[in-house]
């Protein structure tokens, strides 16, 4: 037994490391949760007006970072439309169009529908870096004071929204 124990430990450690090696870490925790959202000033898609972080305070909202080149965004789009139309959840979605072209973004929205109350464009990706974005789609839950309460990386759907966002939203509204 004494002689076998190290071998068992070795195999255990080997299996653990091998598993970590082949399983890409997709959900890197964000240090921004519980912090105020970073300050930004972005132009509204296809208009001359711009919006800052101060303009979206006062209501619980979602900030959704998306792009037309992003495959996951395509997958979550139908759910975003459904969410935008859901009167009982009643949460405004602010879109940040990340490193994209305005004409492509506009075509996307006219073809698939527009779930956003406003779409801001971040063509150079500076605001995205401030938000710690590394892959679209990413969705942030912002409370009335502008504090980031939750961040989701990857496409939203009914199930993960109900599980991860709804409890926090209910808490915030209580």
């Amino acid at each position: 037994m004494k002689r076998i124990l190290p071998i068992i430990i070795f195999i255990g450690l080997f299996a653990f490391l091998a598993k970590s090696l082949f399983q890409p870490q997709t959900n890197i925790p964000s240090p921004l949760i519980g912090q105020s959202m970073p300050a930004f000033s972005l132009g509204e898609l296809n208009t001359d007006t711009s919006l800052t972080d101060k303009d979206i305070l006062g209501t619980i909202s979602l900030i959704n970072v998306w792009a037309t080149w992003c495959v996951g965004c395509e997958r979550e789009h139908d759910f975003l439309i459904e969410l935008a139309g859901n009167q009982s959840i009643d949460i405004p979605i602010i879109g940040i169009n990340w490193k994209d072209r305005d004409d492509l973004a506009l075509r996307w929205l006219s073809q698939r529908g527009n779930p956003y109350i406003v779409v801001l464009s971040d063509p150079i990706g500076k605001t995205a870096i401030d938000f710690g974005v590394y892959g679209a789609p990413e969705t942030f839950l912002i409370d009335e004071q502008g504090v980031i309460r939750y961040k989701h990386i990857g496409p939203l759907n009914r199930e993960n929204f109900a599980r991860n966002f709804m409890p926090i939203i209910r808490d915030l509204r209580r």
Partner: protein
Amino acid sequence: MKKVCLILLLITSQVGSIESNEALTNQERELYQQIIQEVRCLVCQNQSVGESNADLAKDLRTEILEQVQKGSSEDDIKNYLLSRYGDFVLYEPSFKKSTYVLWLSPVLIILLILGWLRKIGVIGK
């Protein structure tokens, strides 16, 4: 032909530092090069932002370059990235409560192995 090869060679060897041909002092360039090697490209993982051609890596290089030019220190820039992307963004995470296990486990494992070797008599008492 030789000239073409030389130009191609020059272009390809510059890939990692495309953004560094702006006016930088030697010291700034060194700092920039050092930081981009130590920051992880989060979308490509296992590449630093210095090695990667991913869009995000380019954006991060530009951001780091701008901050170097503004005269930010290494710590300032690393803290900037840490506060946005978390510990994972640095290849060498800082030594703090949540990373104690990460830093100390190798030492612990070596001590355990030494202890065990002593016990079974491979190394002298």
